[in-house]
C-alpha cells in the first residue's frame, strides 16, 4: 500500500484521461452506459414496434420471435416499452440528479464556507427536510400542471414538473453532507494558507474545496440517479407522473411486480436496466473521482 509509482508531470487534461483510462471499472461503466444510451436512442428505429400498440390476442406472453422479451397484460411489446421507457427514465434520472446534486452542492459549499450564510441555509434545509412530500407534490400539481401544460405542451410540461419535483425535494442530503465536509476542510492548513494568500472565493472553491468533497458528491450523484428513476414511477401514481401510456423503467418494474409469477420477464428486464444504469454510473463516478483527485495515484498490487 505504501509503495507508489510516481508519474512524471503531464498536462492536466491528458493526465485526467490517462488516469481515467487505467481505471478498468470506469471504462467498463462508460462502455455499458454508452451502450444503454445508444440503445434507447437508436433502438426504436431498429425495433420499430409502437410501445402503446395493444394486441389482446398476445397478452401476457413469454419471449417469442414476434416479441423477444414478451408482452404485458394488454399485449404491448416489452422490448419496445423498454427502449421507449429508457429515454424517459434516463432523461429524468440524469436531469433530476443534476438539479438535486447541483443545488445541494451549491447550498452545502456556501453554508460551509461562509459563516454568515450557514445558519439561514441550514435552517432552510431543515424546513425542506420536514415538509411532508406527498402534500407538497399535490400542491405542485394543483398550482403548476395546467400552466406548464399550456406553456410547453403536455409532455414537456409534465417533464419539467417531474424533474423539478424530484430535484427540489432531494437536494437536502447532498447539501448537509457537503457542508459537513467543507466545515472540516475550512480549518485545514492548505485552505487557511490559500485564504491568507488572498485566493478568490471561486478559485478557492474550484481548486481546493470541490476536489476534496468530490467523493461524497459523486456518491450522491450515483445514488441520486437511481433514486430519481424510481421516484418517477412513484409519482405517476399520484397523477404527477407521465400519463399511464408513457412507459418508463420504474413504472414497468412497478406494474411488472404484480405479474412476477405470470411473466417474470416483466420484472427482470426493467430491473436489469435500472441496476445496470446505476452500476455503470457508479463506476464512472469512481473513475472520475480517482482521475480528478490531484494527489491520487493508483495503488500497485503487492
Amino acid at each position, binding site marked *: 500500500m505504501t509503495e507508489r509509482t510516481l508519474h512524471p508531470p503531464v498536462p492536466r487534461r491528458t493526465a485526467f484521461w490517462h488516469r481515467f483510462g487505467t481505471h478498468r471499472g470506469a471504462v467498463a461503466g462508460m462502455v455499458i452506459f454508452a451502450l444503454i444510451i445508444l440503445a434507447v436512442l437508436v433502438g426504436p428505429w431498429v425495433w420499430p414496434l409502437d410501445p402503446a400498440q395493444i394486441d389482446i390476442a398476445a*397478452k401476457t406472453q413469454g419471449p417469442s420471435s414476434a416479441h423477444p422479451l414478451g408482452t404485458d*397484460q394488454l399485449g404491448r411489446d416489452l422490448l419496445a416499452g423498454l427502449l421507449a421507457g429508457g429515454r424517459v427514465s434516463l432523461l429524468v434520472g440524469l436531469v433530476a440528479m443534476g438539479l438535486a446534486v447541483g443545488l445541494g452542492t451549491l447550498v452545502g459549499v456556501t453554508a460551509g464556507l461562509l459563516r454568515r450564510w450557514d445558519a439561514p441555509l441550514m435552517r432552510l434545509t431543515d424546513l425542506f427536510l420536514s415538509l411532508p412530500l406527498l402534500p407538497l407534490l399535490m400542491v405542485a400539481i394543483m398550482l403548476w400542471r395546467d400552466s406548464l401544460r399550456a406553456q410547453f405542451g403536455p409532455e414537456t410540461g409534465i417533464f419539467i414538473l417531474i424533474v423539478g419535483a424530484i430535484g427540489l425535494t432531494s437536494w437536502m442530503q447532498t447539501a448537509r453532507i457537503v457542508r459537513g465536509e467543507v466545515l472540516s476542510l475550512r480549518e485545514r492548513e492548505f485552505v487557511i494558507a490559500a485564504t491568507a494568500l488572498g485566493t478568490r472565493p471561486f478559485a478557492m472553491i474550484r481548486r481546493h474545496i470541490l476536489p476534496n468533497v468530490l467523493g461524497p458528491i459523486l456518491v450522491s450523484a450515483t445514488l441520486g440517479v437511481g433514486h430519481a428513476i424510481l421516484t418517477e414511477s412513484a409519482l405517476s401514481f*399520484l397523477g404527477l407522473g407521465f400519463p399511464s401510456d408513457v412507459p418508463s423503467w420504474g413504472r414497468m418494474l412497478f406494474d411488472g411486480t404484480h405479474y412476477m409469477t405470470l411473466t417474470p420477464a416483466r420484472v427482470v428486464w426493467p430491473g436489469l436496466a435500472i441496476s445496470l444504469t446505476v452500476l455503470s454510473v457508479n463506476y464512472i463516478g469512481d473513475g472520475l473521482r480517482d482521475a480528478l483527485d490531484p494527489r491520487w495515484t493508483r495503488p500497485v498490487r503487492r
Partner: protein
Amino acid sequence: MTGNQGGMRCLTGGIVLSMLPALACAEQGASGHLNILYWQAPTILNPYLSSGPKDIEPASLVLEPLARYDETGTLTPWLAADIPTLENGGISEGLTSITWTLRPGLTWSDGTNVTAQDVVFTAKYCMTPDGGCQQATKFSDVTSVEALDDLTVRLTFAAPKPFPYGPLVGVETPILQKAQFEGCIGANAQSCTAQNTAPIGTGPFRVTEFRAGDVVTFEANPQYRDPDKPGFATVTIKGGGDAIGAARTVLETGEMDYAWNLQVDPAILDKMAAGGTGQIIRSFGTPVERLMINRTDPSPSLGDLRSTRDGGAHPFLTDPAVLGALSIAIDRSVVAELGYGAAGKPTCDILPAPAIYASSANDACLTQDLDRARQMLEDAGWVDSDGDGVREKDGGRLSVLFQTSTNPVRQDTQALLKSWWAEIGIETELRQIDPSVFFGGDPGSPDTFQKFYADIQMFTNFFPGTDPEAYLNNWTCKSIPTPANNWLGFNIPRYCDPEYDALAAQLAQTADLKDRAALARRMNDMLMQAGALIPLVHRGDVSAISNTLQGVKMNSWDSELWNIADWTRADEPR
C-alpha cells in the same frame, strides 16, 4: 323460539352444505379463530361516522339494523320481528309512517335489554345537527320517531314515502345502544373515542381490541340470541397492504381466511387461485363503471365559466353522432374480461340491477362496430382532412382529454379505449389523478370529478340497497355542480332535460313497485339515448375465501359479513 329456528336452519344448512352435518351444527365458538383481511383498514366502528364500507362492514359484526338485505337483495327482518308492509298494517295508508316491532327477548352484549328507546335514540343520534352523521339523508324526511311501547317504534315522514325502508334498515344504519351513546350526541359525537371504537351491539361478536387503521379483534358475544352461534370463538380483522397482497394471503399463503374487495387483474387472481389454498367468490350489486361525458365546454379560456352550462355547450360532445361513435367503438366484453373477469358484465345501462329495473332498450351497444362508428362520424361531417389520423369539422378537432383516478384496472381500460378511439379517428390524451384529490371535492382543486375540467372521465357509481330513486335524482337539472353551489352536486355530465325532471318528480309520488320500475327504466333509457353517460361494465364484488371456510354467502346488497354468525370451519378443505 329463536333458538329452535336456528337449530332447524343449521340442520338443513348442514345437509345442503357438506357431507358432515355435525360440523355445521356445532356449538358457539367451536370453529376457533377466524382471520379476515380488509386491506383498507377500519379506522372506526361507528357506521354513522365512518368513511365507507371498510369501517361499516367490520362494524356489522357487532351492530345490527332492524332489517337487512340478504344475498338475493330481499329485505329480511333482523332485529325486527317482521317487515312492515301496507298489507300487515306496518305502513300507514297515506304512506307517511312506518311502524317497526322488535323481536322480543333481544339483549345487548352487556346483558341489558334492547328496547324501542334504543331505536328512537339511534334516529335522534343521527338527526341531531352538528353530529357529523353521514347517513343523515336517510333520515331527511323523518319528522318524528316515537316509541309506542317497549318493542314498537313509529317513524313519521313529512311526505308520502313510497319506499320507507331507508332509516334503520341495512348495514349503514344499525341500532346503537342508548345507554352507551347518550353522551355522544351532537358535537360530542366526534370525541367519543371509546364508544366509536368499541360499540356495544346485538351482533354475534363484541370488540375486544381496536387499533385504528391496523387491526380489530372480536370475540363471540355470549348474549347472542342464538346460543349455538356464532361458529367462531374469535375473529381478527387485519388491515393494510394492497388488494393483490390481500388476495395472496388467502389464495397462496393461507394465512387469512377471507380477503375483501379484490379489484385486481383477473389473470393474476386466477393464477393465484389455481391449486391454491382458497377460492374467489363474487356477487353483483348495482355498481357500474361508466364514462361521464362533459356536455359543457371545459376549455381553460372560459375562466370561471369553464365546465358550466353558462359557458356554453361542448364543441362536439353534444353531437349524437360523436357520442354514438364513442360508445359503439368500445368492445365492452374485452374491457370486462381484461379488467374484471368473471366479476364484470358488459352493460349498456347505468341501472343494471335489480332485475326489475334492468332495461333492454340499449343493448345494441354491446357489440363493437368500428365500421359503423366511422360511418356515423363520416355522415355527420367529421372527416380527417389533413391526414393526421384525427377527424375535424368546422375547425374543431376530435381530440379529448380523458381522466380518471389512479388504479391499475382503470389505466388498462383507458389504454384500451384510447386505442379503439384512435381507430375511428378520435385522439385521446390520458390523465390520472390521485383518488383522494379526484373524489375529494376540494373547491380549490382543478382536478375533482365534480369540476370536470376534462372532456371525458371514468369512475364507478352505485346505489346502496335496492331502491334507485336517490340515484336517479343525480341527473336532474338542480344537481348540476356549478361555482354557485360550490361544485356540489352529482350531475357530472351537466345533463338537463325538463322531461327527465318531470319523471323524477313522478317517481317520488309513485308507490307501486311495478310502476316505479317502469319509470326508472324510462329514466335510464333517456340518459342512455342522450349519451350523457356511456356505461361500460356492471361490476361485481370480489372476495377470496379459504377452502376450509363454509357458510359464506357473498352479499352485494348489505355487508359482506352479514351472515358471519353462520360461518364455520370445515375439518378438511372442501
